[in-house]
Structure formats: structure tokens, C-alpha cells
């Protein structure tokens, strides 16, 4: 018996890998749950109930998945070209900052104009920001992993500075919080009396756009070619650096859009805890989806369900909701293994 690399991956296997990885992660995380004194099956039952046990729970899960879909797309597009953008967290906050700046300016525009403007501003802020590390990478050879990671901390401090300074809500009694967005800047709710908003449509549209771009356009072909083999791509006459920069802008814009959508759709104002690590979770979402834009939608729902469900489980039996972070991190690693397994097959003889 020996291992042999597969020439191409059967669709069924590609589709089976993420659920298998997710199940393996849940299985592995039964151990810490046991050690914490919980019955894992009961805990997982409560997580499922909390995430999908009622219409309201479902809408909460989908609402939580919206920013994860967008940061997941941001990471997936970048990783496709092996541009290691680990800065989605920072780009998300910059997008939110731009959305707040525009949404609280009292421009007096009708919603039909103001909402798109707010979203575009958020995307632009994220995209322009990501241009910096990408430019340093292609021009000066500075590793983008470290720069994007370090910039996350810079942006968080910048947000703190703005929320305690020029952008602080005068009515907030000293809390570091922005003024609420004008009503005309808010994304409407999809279902009344829930928190599910039109950001879902934005995220779905972004996913489809990414998928079509990657699979059906010349740009997408270049992106995939550069990711597969930059030297071959350069030899084929592609402007590899320009492709990288373009991908960086798209990736940053998607993460920025996540921030703008979260502010305009869910929160209505900006605080320093807008994102509980959506940018980093985007890496898990993208990996679980094997960097496929449509797969991102499903894996974002899974990650969101774990987080929403764990919150409700934690309220019920008092087990720390950090179990969600643990499950999600484990799923990232099991998915790497699952991806490896699907790339090989066992040959007898």
C-alpha cells in the first residue's frame, strides 16, 4: 500500500471534507468539555438549540454569519494568490470607521443614495489600507503576514483614539462610542422584530461576484494562475505584482465592507468591541470553505452557529463560551488534515 497524489479532486470528496473536519473538531472538543465537568452531548445539544432551535435563533445565527461571510471572502480571495492578508480585523474596523464618518455627517441624502455610499466608503477604506502592506510586499519584499498583523493593533488604537476624541458621541457620557448613524444610513431589516438585516443580501451578492470573477473572468484566471505558480504566471506574461495589488484591494475592500455592514446593519454605532475577532475567524471560514467563495457562505454559517449556540449554552449551564473559539480553532486544524487526506488516495501494491 502506498499513497498517491490525486490528479483531480472528485466533487463528492471536496464536499465531504469540511463537514468531516467540523465533526472531528466537535469530537475532539468533547474532551475539554468533559474536563470542564459538562456532558458534551448535552452541551452540543444546547449549542444546536441555541443556534437553530427557533426562528429567532436562526435569524441570530444568520445575522452573525454576515460579517464572517465577508471576512471569509476577504481571506479566501487573498489566500488564492498566496497573499497572506491576516489583517481583515483591522480592515473591518477601518471600514466601520469610514461608515460612521459618512453615516453621522448629516448629509441629508435619501437612503437609496446614502446606504450605498456608506458601504462603498467602508469598502474603500479597507481596500486602500490593504494597499499599503501589499505595496510593501511587491516593491520592497516586506513580508505581508507581519505587517498586516501589526496593523491590526494600530487600527484598534486608531479606533479608540477617534472614539475618545473627534468621533465620540457627545451624548455617550464619556463612553468611547460613536454617535448613532442617521436613519437614512441604516440598512433595513430583512425580517421585522429580528436583527437579520439587508447585509445578508450584500454578503450573498459579494460571494457570487467573487465566484464569477474567480471562475469566469480573465482577472480571475490571473488570480488563480498567480496563486498556483507565480513564476509560471510571470513567464506567461502576467503582471504578477499588479495582480497581487488588485487582489489586495479586493480583499481589503471585502473586509472593510464587513465593518460597514456590521455598523449600518446591526449596531447603528461604533464601539471598540464591534468585532469579537471576525477578521481572524475569517481565516477559519475561508479554510473550511477550501477558499471557494460559495463555500464561504456555508462555513460562515457553521462558525456563526457555534458562536451563537455557545453563548446560549453558556447561559444555560455555565460552561465558558470560549469553547466556541476552541471548536473553531480545532476545526481549522482538522480541515487542514482533511484537505490533505482528500489530495491523496491509497493505492494497493
Amino acid at each position, binding site marked *: 500500500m502506498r499513497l498517491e497524489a490525486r490528479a483531480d479532486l472528485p466533487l463528492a470528496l471536496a464536499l465531504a471534507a469540511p463537514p468531516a473536519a467540523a465533526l472531528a473538531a466537535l469530537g475532539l472538543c468533547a474532551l475539554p468539555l468533559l474536563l470542564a465537568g459538562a456532558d458534551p452531548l448535552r452541551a452540543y445539544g444546547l449549542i444546536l438549540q441555541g443556534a437553530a432551535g427557533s426562528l429567532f435563533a436562526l435569524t441570530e445565527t444568520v445575522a452573525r454569519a454576515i460579517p464572517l461571510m465577508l471576512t471569509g471572502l476577504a481571506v479566501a480571495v487573498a489566500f488564492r494568490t498566496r497573499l497572506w492578508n491576516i489583517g481583515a480585523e483591522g480592515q473591518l474596523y477601518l471600514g466601520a470607521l469610514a461608515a460612521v464618518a459618512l453615516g453621522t455627517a448629516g448629509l441629508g441624502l435619501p437612503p437609496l443614495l446614502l446606504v450605498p455610499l456608506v458601504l462603498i466608503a467602508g469598502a474603500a477604506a479597507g481596500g486602500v489600507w490593504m494597499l499599503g502592506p501589499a505595496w510593501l510586499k511587491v516593491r520592497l519584499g516586506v513580508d505581508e*503576514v*507581519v505587517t498586516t498583523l501589526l496593523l491590526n493593533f494600530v487600527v484598534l488604537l486608531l479606533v*479608540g483614539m477617534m472614539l475618545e476624541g473627534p468621533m465620540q458621541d457627545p451624548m455617550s457620557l464619556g463612553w468611547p462610542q460613536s454617535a448613532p448613524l442617521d436613519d437614512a444610513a441604516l440598512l433595513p431589516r430583512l425580517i421585522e422584530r429580528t436583527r437579520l438585516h439587508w447585509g445578508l443580501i450584500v454578503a450573498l451578492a459579494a460571494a457570487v461576484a467573487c465566484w464569477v470573477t474567480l471562475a469566469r473572468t480573465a482577472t480571475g484566471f490571473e488570480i488563480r494562475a498567480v496563486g498556483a505558480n507565480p513564476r509560471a504566471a510571470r513567464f506567461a506574461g502576467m503582471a504578477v505584482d499588479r495582480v497581487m495589488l488588485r487582489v489586495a484591494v479586493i480583499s481589503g475592500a471585502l473586509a472593510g465592507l464587513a465593518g460597514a455592514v456590521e455598523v449600518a446593519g446591526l449596531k447603528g454605532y461604533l464601539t471598540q468591541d464591534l468585532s469579537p475577532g471576525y477578521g481572524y475567524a475569517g481565516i477559519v471560514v475561508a479554510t473550511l470553505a477550501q477558499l471557494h467563495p460559495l463555500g464561504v457562505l456555508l462555513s460562515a454559517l457553521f462558525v456563526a452557529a457555534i458562536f451563537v449556540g455557545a453563548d446560549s449554552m453558556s447561559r444555560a449551564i455555565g460552561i465558558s463560551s470560549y469553547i466556541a473559539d476552541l471548536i473553531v480553532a480545532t476545526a481549522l486544524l482538522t480541515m487542514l488534515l482533511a484537505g490533505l487526506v482528500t489530495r491523496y488516495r491509497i493505492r494497493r501494491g
Partner: protein
Amino acid sequence: MSEALDILLQASFWAATLRIATPLILGTLGELICERAGVLNLGIEGIMTVGAMSGWLFVHLGADLWTGLALAALVGMTFGLLHGLFTVPLGLSQHVTGIGITLLASSIAYFTYRVLLPDVATPPRIEPFEPWTFMAAVPWIGPVLAEQTAPTYLALALVPATAWLLSATPLGLALRAAGENPAAVEAQGLDVYGLRIGALMAGSALMAMGGAFLTMSAFNAFFFEMVAGRGWICIALVVFASWRPGKALLGALLFGAFDAYQVRLQQAVGAEVPYQLFLMLPYLLSIAALVVMARRASYPQALMRPFVKGER
């Protein structure tokens, strides 16, 4: 202006410099060992976090300080092993695995902390390492050294030790060769996988000790998000140091001095300038160091390249 210069003459400033530099020295040495063997270890941030938590935890549960530090190193080593299994024999992406290790290690740290202390508002403190005053009588630098704890001396001693190990021993040569030309190492009949996994384990142990310094000597308690990017800064420092232990020490000390200086300057300037601007400086400085050094950097040739036995 004279205030800004006065800071440089205070013993407390130089003492703080060494204190701030200690976790960075340990983390940078750890990352450097991994990278010299050819593996980028992005697990560093999480390994420092879990090191900080476990060192604190073992002491909180009754271990003495050195046992706690050793156990923290052991925990770090375990994560290094996991990283190694993924990236070395299996050849999985070092970027994604590293981020995965960071997410896993920090979530294990946070989950464990919350399970053991479900509703504690103020983090329990431990009795930290005492300053080691045996060098207090040394002229000029005595007052600075007298404020340092034993782990700082350990970190300082590890710099020449690592340099010697890498440059003057057969093991160090093999380790460096594994990062430059693994095929040649294999041709020598040495085990590339073993060398790389060993480097990851040793390096991760140092990272965890760097994290443990935060809870066992600097802050005396564990806080969420307390590592605050120090791991990422260490990765930048490795590039700044051109993968050399001596320069890594220099980089960590420069960084420590800068950080200690900005804190004091912040107090001198007062509230006119937002304090966040000062806090941004260390991160921006790391990026600036990367930009300056990137062109001159000579990466280990096989860094981030998985090695497949018998393949060219």
C-alpha cells in the same frame, strides 16, 4: 525638551528597558531557532499566551516559580510538536497552521482560565520572581541590574548560548542546514524532519517562557489579550536581526528602550496628545524595522518550503 533627555538618565528607564525586552528576547530567540531550521512559526502569539496562562496557573495552584516556568515551557513545547507534525512530515501550509496554533493555544488558555475561575472579576495575583540584587554593587549599571529578576538573566544568558549552539556545534550546523538545504542534510544521513520538529519544540518552549515572564515577573497575574501582539513583534525582530541571536538581543533591547521611552514621554507630554498615538509607535516601529531590513535580509533559503523525502 530637557525632560525628554532627562528620561535617558534615569535608572528606572533602563531597568524598564530590560524588563520590557525580556519576553521579546525569549520569543525572538524561539522564533529564530524555528526559522533557521526552515519553519515559520506563526503560532508564537498563541504559544506566548498559553505560556503566560500556564506559568501563572501552575504557581497559582501551588508550584514553585521555577517549576511553573519549566511547565510553561513544556506546554509551549507541546504546541511546537503539534505545529511540527502538521508542517514538517505532512508539509501543510506554515501560514495557516501557524494561525491555527495561535487560535488554538490562546483559546485553550482562555477556556481553561474561565473554567477554573468562572466569575472572578480581579485576576488572582501570584508571588512573582524577586529582583536579583547580587549585582547591585556594580558601578553605573548596578541600580539597573538590581531591579531585574532571574528570568531576565536567563534570557540574556540564552543569547550567547543560542549563538554558540547554532554556529559552533554539529547540531547547530545540521539545524541551519535543514533551513538552507534540507536535501544536503538528508544526503548526510541526518533526519530533516527530526531536526525541524526539534527546532519547533525548542523554539516554542522559549516563546512560552517569554509569555510566562509576563505573568510571573512583570504583571503577576493573567489578563485576557495580555500578550498584545508581542509574538508578532518578535517575528518582525527576527527579520530585523537577520536571523542572528546577537542582533536579536540588540533589536529587543532597542525595542524595549523605545517602549519604555514612549511611556515616560507620554507622562511628560500629558493629555495634549492622545495616548493611543504613543501606543501605536511600537507596532509602527516594528513595521519600519521590517521595511529597512527587508532588502538586506538573507532569509534561510528553505524557509517556508516543506521538505519531501527523496524529492528534489
